[in-house]
């Protein structure tokens, strides 16, 4: 991202709903600020989980962007970015 574009107010999508953020913010922080807390479910107990460490360590904020699994805390928001939940199945069933 060009430095000049950072901080500009942009729209992005999570699960088809529109949210706004400042360009350059992380997807995790932007959604947190918009009140979106639960991002996925834990694979064994299907418990709701959200952003926790915000520094790429805990892996709790895994989401899908452009068909790729990425950490929401390590992914920057840009205009029109489309974010969705990962389709996790009960891995241990």
């Amino acid at each position, binding site marked *: 991202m060009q430095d000049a574009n*950072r*901080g500009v107010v942009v729209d992005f999508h999570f699960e088809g709903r529109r949210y706004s953020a400042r360009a350059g913010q*992380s997807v995790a922080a932007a959604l947190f600020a918009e009140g979106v*807390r639960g991002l996925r479910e834990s*694979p064994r107990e299907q418990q709701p*989980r959200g952003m*926790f*460490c915000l520094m790429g*360590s805990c*892996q709790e904020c895994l989401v899908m962007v452009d068909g790729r699994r990425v950490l929401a805390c390590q992914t920057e928001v840009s205009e029109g970015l489309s974010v969705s939940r990962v389709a996790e199945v009960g891995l241990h069933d």
Partner: protein
Amino acid sequence: MTDYDLIVLGAGPAGVNAALAASAAGLRVALFDENRAAGGQVYRAPAFAGTTDDSAERQAGDALREALAKSRVSAFLGHQVWAVTADFQVDAVGPQGSLSCTSRALVVASGTTERVVPFEGWTTPGVIGLAAATILLKSQKVLPGKTTLVAGCGPLLAAVAAGTLKAGGELRGIVDVAGFGDWLRALPAMLARPDILRQGLAWAWAIRRSRTPLYARHTLVRVIPEGERLRAELAPCDRAGRALPGERKQVLVDCVAVGHGLTPATEITRLLHARHRYSRKAGGWVAITDDCGRTSRERLYVVGDAAGIAGAAAAAEHGTLAGLACARELGAAAGSLDPALGQAQRRHARAARFGHAMARLMALREGHVQGIAADTIICRCEDVTRGEIDAACDAGARDVNQLKAWTRCGMGPCQGRTCGDVAAELLATRLDVPREAVGIFSARTPLRPMTVGALTGAFVYADIPIPKAAPL
């Protein structure tokens, strides 16, 4: 594959100063960090420009980034290092795809992981680490919540509380496992760095002026979602942080930020089989080093908090020490480095005195894990409860790697970074043996989860060279 004299992993104060010192002494240096700007956690750069911040941390961070930009260090920012080999080949993935390089020496400056001692409901969305809250405030310019409760122990409590107030947030309480006496005992050592002490006192003053309820010698016992908000329950506790019988207080907030100290990030030094020791005061397992950060593995150094918790100010000096020591070891400008080394040593000792006092406040308290309920999740990735860990222990698990194989605790995508310290403490406590006896999770590559797609990059099948079939 590019060859360097030195590769530094981590661009916080320790790593940047190691890289700068070695580069100034004439070494060809590469510096890697997963973040797009240098600074590490304490001196983290703002996510977007146009944000004014007159804090000492922001100024120190800007100075660090400027010095790096002016240097000859090859900085690979926004690069995730996923493998490091014994002969110092470093594999990373960056915005332009994957990349490998080699070096004659390696400095590990990987910082720390925050420790959170689990309690009922700590996995609830909206409960975040104290370090996460500092990133929200400092870099993302986001309030953790309209109303926030901060809990745990150590200086991050005060940093998050003061930061929240400064940003206009409403603080519903500070829940500190430590008592006033614990803080008082740290005071003499804090006088070693009056500048940092002054910042701390400014935070304390801001907190006092806000009339935020201060719950000393209290701990969080559970967090329950209530609509869009969180109901946190606090209890008085003993020195270790174990809840005592007595009045439970309930606080309704948007966000709970909690942390019980920091553990050194030792994945890389463990991966390279440097010798380690367990030190509760230093934050947990640390590589055994001399005062310049030299490990038991030749030409492998570890600096900053990754070598034992001592704080950002000490980390900067530690980095300079290692950079100079490394330059000398590789034969650059030998004798002329002595005055700089001596100066860095003195400065490091002073800053570390302060940092070690803070580290003692954040050390995992003996017996803290005993209060965790049996059905509380310890390993977030695999939803492994304390009860399951205890059961594995009773069935004969004697080592954390055995525990991992039996229960999947620490086997998930975070690779045990979040639960490792607490799981090992639970096992050692139940077996009544020292922490050394139960060991530490083995480090494995990839150092972070990695998709095959990220490693291969975009390609079309037609471009893959297929050798001619061998003649029959």
